């Protein structure tokens, strides 16, 4: 598939600057590390977070950060899309006989985000092995669904923000509320927030569907049919479909800047 061809090309080109690559990867490892250290120290100070224990919160943290770093690795092309449009390079993509979404997706990969990925994976393993949860195949499957669903949501937000570029040329900083802000917000169980935050991030941008709700199922806290909570991440993943649609509409109305 052409997407993977792009990927291997980018990987090889980034490895050309080996020292810089590893330094960046290491730095990427430490960014969420300091945030996670903060989380750990807060629990050390206060003991609990509205009834949530440290490892429960850590699991939530790991899922969201894994999803975020995966989306940063693989969907970063949309994030830097404003430069493609501004520089007129997008015109070139349009004349190629491939789907624009795949080409933009393939225009950039950030492999140094692997540092972030490794860090979140370590937290995940630590949380999973320390939680007093009887793991079943269904629960493990739900966990995987959560991560995949989260990745798709972040990707969807990147696409929406990129579509805005068709009209504004410049990327908008407001999109950060939903990517960085969404990550900061969703790394804690959603029910600690005010109602409007919870509602917005469950029904509009469904972070709650990939973290908080299925987490209830994994931790055996559900009231009601467990299957519903288990499949919640699928509902979250649906978010990416309208984003893709908006993107296609945007491409259709695209007018080149002429540069």
């Amino acid at each position: 598939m052409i997407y993977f061809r792009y990927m291997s090309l980018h990987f090889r080109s980034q490895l050309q600057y080996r020292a810089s690559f590893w330094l960046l990867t290491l730095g990427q490892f430490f960014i969420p590390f300091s945030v996670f250290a903060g989380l750990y120290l807060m629990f050390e100070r206060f003991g609990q977070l509205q009834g949530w224990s440290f490892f429960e919160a850590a699991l939530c943290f790991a899922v969201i950060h894994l999803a975020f770093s995966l989306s940063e690795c693989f969907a970063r092309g949309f994030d830097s899309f404003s430069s493609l449009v501004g520089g007129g390079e997008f015109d070139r993509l349009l004349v190629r006989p491939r789907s624009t979404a795949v080409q933009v997706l393939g225009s950039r990969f950030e492999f140094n985000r692997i540092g972030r990925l490794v860090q979140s994976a370590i937290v995940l393993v630590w949380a999973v092995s320390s939680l007093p949860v009887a793991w079943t195949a269904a629960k493990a499957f739900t966990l995987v669904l959560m991560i995949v669903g989260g990745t798709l949501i972040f990707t969807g937000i990147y696409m929406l923000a990129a579509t805005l570029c068709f009209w504004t040329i410049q990327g908008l900083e407001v999109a950060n509320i939903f990517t960085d802000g969404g990550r900061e917000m969703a790394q804690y169980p959603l029910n600690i927030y005010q109602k409007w935050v919870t509602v917005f991030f469950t029904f509009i941008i469904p972070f709650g569907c990939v973290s908080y709700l299925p987490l209830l199922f994994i931790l055996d806290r559900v009231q009601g049919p467990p299957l519903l909570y288990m499949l919640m991440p699928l509902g979250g993943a649906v978010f990416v479909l309208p984003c893709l649609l908006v993107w296609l509409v945007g491409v259709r109305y695209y007018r080149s800047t002429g540069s």
Partner: protein
Amino acid sequence: MRAYVSVCRMRFLNGLQYRAAALAGVATQLFFGLIFIMVYIAFYNGSTVQAPISLQDIVAYIWLQQIFLAFIMLWARDNEIFQLITGGSIAYELCRPCGIYPFWFAKLLAQRLSSALLRCFPILLIVFFLPEPYRLSLPESPGAFALFLITLALGLLLVVSVSMLIYISVFWTLSPTGSILMVSVAGEFFAGMIMPIPLMPQWLQTITYVLPFRWAVDLPFRVYSGHIPADEALWGILIQLGWLAFLVGTGRLLLRRALRQVVVQGG
């Protein structure tokens, strides 16, 4: 001196041009502030332990952090300077009839000032009128407010002098991204940006007190709420001045050494 003031003014006016970006920044910072406060409220609510700092002080700490973010963030960078160094245009910079260190210092200072001034008033206006737990309280006393302004200004100079060191390091590393990332991640943590310093365990607080970062962020914000009393704040100002002298001195020394190595090729 006139030259530095005017470069400051030019940068400042330039920064004021980006009003739409500032508006987006205001929205982002309000959102982040609200989310952080909700998390702290959740931690404080169910807790049976006595916290070393009141929730009201934490709320002030967080809002001030968001309002003056442009003063304190270490990851802000001026790509122009990097390009000067890595691209070789530094030669032109050397021709200027003024010192490079104060010239860049004035430029970086003005950037932070303009971006903070654009953002701080709308946020201030909103956060003073929020409903109760989220509202920013007024400063403890007029005296505390005066001390807050002094420590904040000195803190800004401290942050600029730290970031000058980052720029100067590029003369040796040639790639800014790695070193910036490391310094800013560590600096942010030890400044109390990830979690307020009073909530850290004792051993970690000891570390933050010997590093420069805490004096730029944590000190002014706790002086504002009165969590750090006036006499302690005066000592803090002395320490700030000491760090400032040290960092500026080191920066000038390193820059002079770096410039001696620069070989300008013709063409």
